[in-house]
């Protein structure tokens, strides 16, 4: 028992580990709540697109000497809005348009990055640097997370109706355009908030896995939000500790744990798991 306690307290003797843990929990929570909507709305690829599109935003913000988060936010939002615009004015389907826009923006970011050679590591943008998180970063992420979480939790019923039945939402007078853009803004904010922890590549997993796991496990949306949050926060905490002892990359460890939980859910989910389906088909 005392040994276990030591296992848990030892990493926490380091201030950078404390900050990493807090960061991982914050990011895990906001991504978890948002991922429920992304999975239900079928917007997983949108998460992918927006996260890649923040790269040119960051680089340009560096050149203009404005806060990188603002650049990242504008880059991400631009990608989402541009996708909608092209979709409304061409015959292409959304996934094709997104593929072009986000890879184009990502490529632009890379080209400018190598030209400008900013002080920020490309690795840190791509994969995060959770162990290097400073107090100021925590504040920034904390404020963005609180704002996004607040918006989503308070308006979750309308957001859910929007995802479920847009035509009905429209019929009863909900501002569906506004809800649509509010979701995109919240998505961009969530990604910006997660950047320092897991980077633009790995944030996609944080934005999809918890919601996907919860979706496999329940038929109620309120439970889905809860399960998703527990899974994400649990993975974050476990990931921070495990990575400390394995000397592994923290962001990647968190995502590996989430992936592992997803596999478990896929196999053992009470109604939709493949094991259960096997049993049912054998009995019938």
């Amino acid at each position: 028992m005392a040994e276990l306690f030591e296992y848990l307290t030892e990493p926490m003797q380091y201030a950078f580990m404390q900050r990493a843990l807090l960061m991982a929990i914050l990011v895990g929570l906001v991504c978890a709540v948002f991922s429920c909507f992304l999975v239900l709305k079928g917007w997983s690829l949108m998460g992918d697109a927006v996260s890649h599109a923040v790269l040119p935003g960051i680089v340009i913000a560096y050149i203009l000497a404005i806060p990188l988060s603002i650049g990242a936010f504008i880059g991400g939002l631009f990608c989402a809005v541009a996708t909608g615009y092209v979709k409304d004015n061409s015959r292409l389907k959304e996934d094709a348009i997104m593929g072009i826009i986000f890879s184009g923006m990502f490529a632009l970011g890379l080209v400018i990055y190598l030209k400008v050679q900013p002080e920020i590591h490309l690795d840190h943008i791509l994969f995060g640097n959770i162990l290097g998180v400073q107090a100021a970063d925590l504040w920034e992420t904390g404020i963005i997370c609180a704002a996004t979480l607040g918006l989503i939790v308070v308006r979750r019923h309308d957001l859910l109706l929007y995802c479920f039945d847009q035509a009905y939402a429209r019929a009863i007078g909900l501002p569906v355009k506004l809800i649509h853009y509010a979701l995109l803004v919240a998505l961009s904010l969530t990604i910006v908030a997660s950047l320092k922890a897991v980077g633009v590549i790995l944030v996609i997993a944080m934005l999809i896995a918890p919601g996907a796991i919860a979706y496999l496990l329940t038929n109620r949306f309120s439970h889905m939000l809860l399960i998703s949050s527990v899974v994400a926060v649990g993975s974050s905490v476990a990931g921070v500790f495990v990575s400390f002892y394995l000397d592994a990359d923290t962001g990647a460890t968190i995502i590996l744990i989430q992936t592992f939980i997803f596999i478990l859910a896929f196999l053992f989910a009470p109604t939709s798991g493949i094991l259960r389906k096997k049993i049912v088909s054998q009995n019938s």
Partner: protein
Amino acid sequence: MAKFIYNPSLEVNDITVTYNNGHTAIYDASFSLSAGTICALVGVNGSGKSTLFKSIMGFVKPVKGSVTLSGMPVLTALKQNIVSYVPQAEDVDWNFPVLVEDVVMMGRFGHMNFMRIPKKKDKLAVRDALEKVGMTEYSRRQIGELSGGQKKRVFLARSIAQEGQIILLDEPFTGVDVQTELAIMKLLKQMRDEGRLMLVATHNLGSIPDFCDHTVMLNRTILDAGKTADVFTPENLEKTFGGVLRHFTLGGDELHDDDDTRSVRVITDDERPLVLYGNKTQKSAAAKKSSTANKPDADAKITTSKAEAK
């Protein structure tokens, strides 16, 4: 008749809808409906039915003309929470993690504060609506666990809980068995008698005279609109569907050996009817041209059937 703050009415004034890709889906379309009506909206796929629905709900803006609901412009009317919509089964994600009662509660959103926390009257309204459609015992089921007819009734209950006055229904009878079809019709008639206005897009031609007092015939513009008795004629159906309708005419000489020259006509939209006369299957006009007609038995009767399940 129930008391409504706004007297339900629907007016479509000479609208033309052109999409961004340049396609004009409907042009110069006009018709109007008043309270206490069930109106069928009839037309082939691609005739502009969904575009008409979209313009009534403000999803698309007509390039010409206007739509008025209870005397108000569309967006104003939608904000009053008087318009309701029952989606087509194909448009619903049946795996969505919501229970029957959750869906019906969505109908109460317009009556709640912005946090959407249900009050006692909201819960009562949900309970009453579920009872009205006979789905009380299923209220805790996930929506995907229901049969086709039950699914329809849940969405109808949502419109009832909403106290919607102008209700748009998209194909309410697809995937529904005959019993449920009758139950839904009864419910719709009840809602009509309460003074509501319902516009029903349907392929189910045979049921229209049974429950729709008005009919709108659409083929990219309004071909005819008015009382079903006046509008729902073979000539109009011919015009609306062009050559698309499946016709089946069983001539007097095939039915009996007297001089009565009247014939039995079966007209259907998407599915081909199975027509039996005696124990012999009858072939439709097109098929008959290429093969010799069957000689039916003398003491036979005619049955038509539509494949219900999709």
